[in-house]
């Protein structure tokens, strides 16, 4: 259950070997290491580290595997394991965590240790925030770096530029789950609701299919406004406009149902029946439109309104979906039809 979305986030991306080119080079070709200007001496060759005994990789009493690591990786992690073991809280250990994290930013032990040093040495957290901003930009789908950022913001207890930063990440990938999650936490913690709906609107202008943006919309409206009548009305109008631009958009229909349902059944909400019917009459057969209409029929049937006509319409829609419009979900639509008939038919 772990990889992919859990740690190093590979979800939704074509899989290639991780693109940290200098590491690739190092793993493959030792000559590149020594000629690179960026690289310092190995830790094993540094005077100031002479007092430390490096701890080689130990794969357990029976080594499950023998691995030949790249020399730099091995060197850095041998020394990392050593300071971890002795629990050294020092500037040099701190720099070591920087290198260890650079080599493998998904290594949660490194980040945990780094946080301990940050506290022990009372280091400049604002500077650390700048540092983690860089790392997140390089690894935006990594759990550890986002958690690190959250801890820093908690310690600093100020919203700093979190909205700006998450917006920066979302500009590159408007659906980045970590960015949205962090943004929600920041908004809730520091009460930054004011401009969020406007921000969501700009994202929806860019891509009205952005499900994360729709979710954020619901988040703001439901947390910040108690979903009063005026708010819901505004949201319904807003959503209907977007649906008209692109009727085949799952997120907008889900949102419409969700926001109306905070107040009322979708059948009872003024104007929705006509809205759907007019689209249907124009022969626009979006599966989401039809699904919404089936839901409305079900509400109507539950309220006992026009039972026979409504049931007939509902089953007709289900058949259309099952056999023509949404055949991949035929079994689902057949089930819905059957359920409606068994619940509401006169027989």
């Amino acid at each position: 259950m772990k990889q992919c979305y859990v740690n190093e986030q590979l979800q939704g991306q074509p899989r290639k070997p991780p693109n940290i080119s200098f590491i690739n080079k190092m793993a493959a070709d030792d000559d590149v290491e020594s000629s690179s200007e960026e690289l310092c001496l190995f830790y094993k060759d540094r005077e100031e580290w002479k007092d430390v005994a490096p701890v080689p990789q130990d794969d357990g009493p029976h080594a499950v595997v023998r691995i030949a690591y790249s020399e730099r990786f091995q060197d850095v992690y041998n020394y990392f394991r050593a300071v971890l073991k002795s629990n050294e809280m020092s500037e040099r250990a701190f720099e070591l965590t920087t290198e260890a994290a650079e080599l493998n930013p998904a290594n949660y032990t490194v980040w945990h240790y780094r946080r301990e040093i940050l506290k022990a040495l009372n280091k400049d957290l604002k500077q650390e925030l700048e540092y983690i901003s860089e790392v997140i930009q390089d690894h935006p789908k990594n759990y550890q770096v986002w958690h690190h950022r959250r801890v820093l913001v908690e310690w600093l207890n100020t919203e700093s530029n979190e909205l700006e930063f998450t917006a920066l990440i979302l500009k590159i990938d408007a659906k980045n789950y970590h960015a949205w999650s962090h943004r929600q936490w920041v908004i809730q913690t520091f009460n930054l609701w004011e401009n969020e709906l406007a921000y969501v609107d700009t994202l929806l202008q860019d891509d009205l299919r952005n499900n994360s943006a729709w979710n954020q919309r619901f988040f703001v409206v439901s947390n910040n406004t108690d979903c009063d009548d005026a708010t819901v009305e505004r949201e319904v109008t807003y959503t209907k406009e977007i649906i008209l631009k692109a009727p085949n958009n799952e997120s907008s229909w889900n949102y419409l149902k969700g926001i109306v349902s905070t107040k009322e059944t979708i059948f009872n909400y003024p104007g929705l029946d006509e809205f759907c019917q007019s689209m249907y009459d124009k022969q626009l057969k979006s599966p989401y439109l039809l699904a919404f209409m089936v839901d409305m029929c079900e509400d109507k049937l539950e309220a006992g309104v026009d039972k026979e006509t409504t049931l007939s319409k509902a089953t007709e829609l289900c058949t259309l979906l099952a056999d023509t419009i949404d055949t991949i979900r035929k079994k689902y639509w057949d089930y819905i039809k059957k359920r409606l008939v068994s619940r509401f038919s006169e027989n």
Partner: protein
Amino acid sequence: MIMMCPSVAGTPLKDVTIKADAPSELLLQKHVDYIAAYSDKVNDYEYVMTEYLRMSGIYWGITALDLMKQLPKMNKEEVVSFVKSCQHDCGGIGASVSHDPHLLYTLSAVQILSIFDAIDAIDVDKVVEFIRGLQQEDGSFMGDQWVSDICGEIDTRFSFCAVACLALLKRLDVINVDKAVEYVVSCKNFDGGFGVRPGSESHSGQIYCCVGMLAITNSLHHVDPDLLGWWLCERQLPSGGLNGRPEKLPDVCYSWWVLASLKVMGRIHWIDKSKLERFILACQDEETGGIADRPGDIVDPFHTLFGVAGLSLLGSYKNQLKAVNPVFCMPEETLTRLGVRTQLL
């Protein structure tokens, strides 16, 4: 006349196309060889870089092999002693030697030992204590412990890990189950799905964790199975593959998260089986063995497990694959042997 909707003002609907020459049969032996050889890789960049999740990697490999009826290809003694060497004094288990304890790897460790019937290799009481200590006042779980005032991550994945682990150890009684359920339910969204924390977007992976957690704690009445079931079957794209949330590309691992969730809710038949099967098979690599996230991409043990598990759940290749438990992603027979049962709708 039916007019299909033009796609206006938004990114185009996302999906992949399966090539005509994509694999269309299960290449079982190739996957067995791929997994069996994985831990022998020398100087392999990916292997080195994934040390921080090694325990989970081993769980993926072992489970995949067992589902393919080839568990003896793993060296049980070596693996068990490796797991043992990763347990810390606090009881928690790390991803590998010298890696900090974490709930994710504690679960993987317990799953591995359960499959090997070697749970006594670790100190079970301490594991239980470690997990108990991770539950917060609101019922949620951290992934690892508080150290000074450094708080751990909260995530519904960890709610699942905690109860799954305790269920396998028959020690669910040590946590506040009602509170744990309450927290997971607070993560339920307007579309019926669940996210990482309250308010977070519904995501198939998190849904699997939440539905699994509720199944283990006999709390599935909190789920609207028709509403969530519909959201989940909407993940199926024309290619047959499943995605994680609306307007995202399909990925084989969602064949597991989505499918297993539907199975738990009694609605697995809402997925078009033959189309999904075709998608999973197309993600196989005929040369190297193993399964990738989508056709043509590079394979890895994670996607290999979930592809195989997905096929098992679909009821495909019944003679070649063992039945898999949809909550734990372990062979059913292991859960039967352990006497662990969950609610299923």
